[in-house]
């Protein structure tokens, strides 16, 4: 149980970066961007390919982020300059990226042009590089000793991944928070909110959409690059349903933690990603469910996350109203018992 939850948290925190990307396109720009399913694999593919070709994992990840940015920009261009419907522009880019991703990963193979998967079993990744440094600190044994004292069995091999990812995600959250409050960020948010208005304040909404989608997909590709290194492979199919996972994280987080400010919303999105993974991990432990059911479970989680908040909101509203009505009733009865004077005061005639 503990190790299952631990694994979910570890993965969830990586997927949180992707969820933040989806948050920027879906919520901030109000642009349902399906590029994500493709750009996630692009991030993974570029990073894996460069690592196999012998580049430093950090450089490989950085290049993946840049390529992801460009992919988002193309979707933005299709939509703004090509006047293609937002959903369609994303889908077009997604299927175009499928072939492109095959070719990118094909660069690692001498006898074929495309390649559907790259294993990274013995390759150097950001994680095992960090872990060799982390292991020398001896923090793992300290933490595990603490937990075994509490009686927890099956302790994780290392806390390093969780630690480094927490720092990276925190940094990204701070960057997103800061960016959305800059002059450019405000204009991007207004583009999603009221295009007519921000155009009348001399902002080029086309450019803002392109840059916004670029930023969003850069984060998605970053998550892809990290997941490839974390799970030690890149696969052409790993992006399927990514957009739904991202959306699920955003919706779950927003439902639980609210959207009062940007700082709070980004926190909600990150937490949503982790909660989603934990729910999924627990669901998969049920005997009759199989890993193949993952997408179905995802769909169910999203549906529940969409419907449940409405139900609670209705219930809350009902009890709030009932309480107020009861108060009014007491006031009214009170005025009656006081006799005619109170009534006469209310109705002078």
């Amino acid at each position: 149980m503990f190790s299952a939850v631990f694994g979910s948290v570890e993965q969830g925190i990586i997927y949180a970066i992707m969820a933040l990307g989806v948050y920027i396109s879906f919520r901030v720009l109000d642009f349902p961007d399906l590029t994500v399913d493709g750009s996630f694999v692009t991030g993974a593919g570029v990073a894996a390919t460069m690592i196999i070709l012998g580049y430093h994992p950090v450089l490989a990840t950085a290049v993946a982020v840049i390529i992801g940015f460009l992919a988002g920009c193309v979707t933005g261009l299709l939509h703004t300059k090509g006047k293609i419907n937002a959903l369609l522009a994303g889908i077009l880019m997604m299927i175009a990226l499928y072939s492109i991703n095959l070719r990118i990963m094909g660069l690692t193979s001498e006898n074929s042009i495309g390649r559907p998967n790259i294993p990274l079993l013995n390759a150097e990744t950001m994680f095992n590089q960090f872990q060799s440094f982390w292991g020398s600190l001896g923090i793992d044994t300290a933490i595990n000793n603490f937990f075994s004292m509490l009686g927890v069995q099956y302790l994780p091999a290392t806390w390093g991944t969780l630690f480094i990812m927490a720092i990276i995600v925190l940094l990204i959250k701070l960057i997103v928070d800061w960016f959305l409050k800059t002059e450019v960020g405000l204009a991007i948010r207004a583009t999603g909110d009221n295009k007519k208005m921000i155009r009348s304040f001399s902002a080029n909404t086309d450019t803002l959409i392109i840059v916004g989608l670029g930023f969003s997909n850069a984060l998605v590709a970053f998550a892809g690059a990290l997941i490839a290194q974390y799970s030690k492979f890149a696969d052409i199919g790993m992006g399927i349903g990514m957009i739904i996972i991202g959306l699920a994280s955003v919706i779950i987080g927003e439902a639980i933690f609210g959207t009062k400010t940007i700082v709070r919303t980004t926190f909600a999105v990150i937490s949503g990603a982790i909660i989603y993974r934990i729910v999924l991990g627990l669901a998969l432990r049920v005997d009759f469910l199989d890993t193949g059911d993952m997408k179905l479970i995802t769909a169910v989680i999203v549906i529940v996350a969409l419907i449940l908040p409405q139900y609670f909101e209705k219930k809350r509203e009902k009890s709030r109203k009932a309480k107020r009505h009861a108060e009014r009733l007491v006031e009214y009865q009170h005025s009656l018992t006081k006799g005619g004077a109170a009534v006469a005061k209310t109705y002078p005639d």
Partner: protein
Amino acid sequence: MLKLTQINKLFNEATPDEKIALDQINLKLNPGDFMTVIGSNGAGKSTMLNMISGALTPDFGVIEIANKDVTKLPEYKRSQMIGRVFQDPMAGTAPTMTIEENLAMAYSRNKKRLLRKGVDKKRRELFRESLESLHLNLENRLNAKVGMLSGGERQALSLLMATFTQPDILLLDEHTAALDPSRAELITNLTKELVEQNQLTTLMITHNMQQALDLGNRLIMMDKGQIILEIEAEEKKKLTIPKLMDEFQRIRGEKLNSDKALLSV
């Protein structure tokens, strides 16, 4: 400050529905002029305003702002020089963003938007001060989302935002039409105040004849895509609504459609 020369615009060209939206419009506004525009629906008032703001481009003709030909300049570039308030109170502000964030966007209208904080301490002070001039207590709600404000409050904020950077031209498109009478009066007074205070060159469309007479130093009446009547400063002060109606009848040879829905008296 603003000069329109021979502006022409057709809608649905070369189809049975072809309509002359603007027909040889010539107009000149001097710095500080406040012109009101009246006319029934379909007269071309809003088309003319959209032409000036860059939302539409003329078929031919030249638009100059501050002695610069802007005919081909896209809307977002032109809006550095133009402030606009729309009829719909929802249209001029971003509802999910806070009051101070909305003002920050108005503030960077004529500057390049950079990766710099939109709202800092200094700007917040500036925003607070200018909001005080509205007397709506908005200065104490800087962090409230604009979607929570009432229509009147939003329109007052829109007006403040539109005039914030003292644009060369202020365009008002029936900006009080969607408000109840008391709110409309508030916004009308505020308009007067802000225009005078900032010496703005203003063009205001209204369907309210009284408002058209009360505000500004010049008045034009439009009909079927043409400017049919121009009234200047001294003359405008003496103008009354019946006189205006008679004038229309004299020019057009037909009775002005005094349907209250079109030209409320």
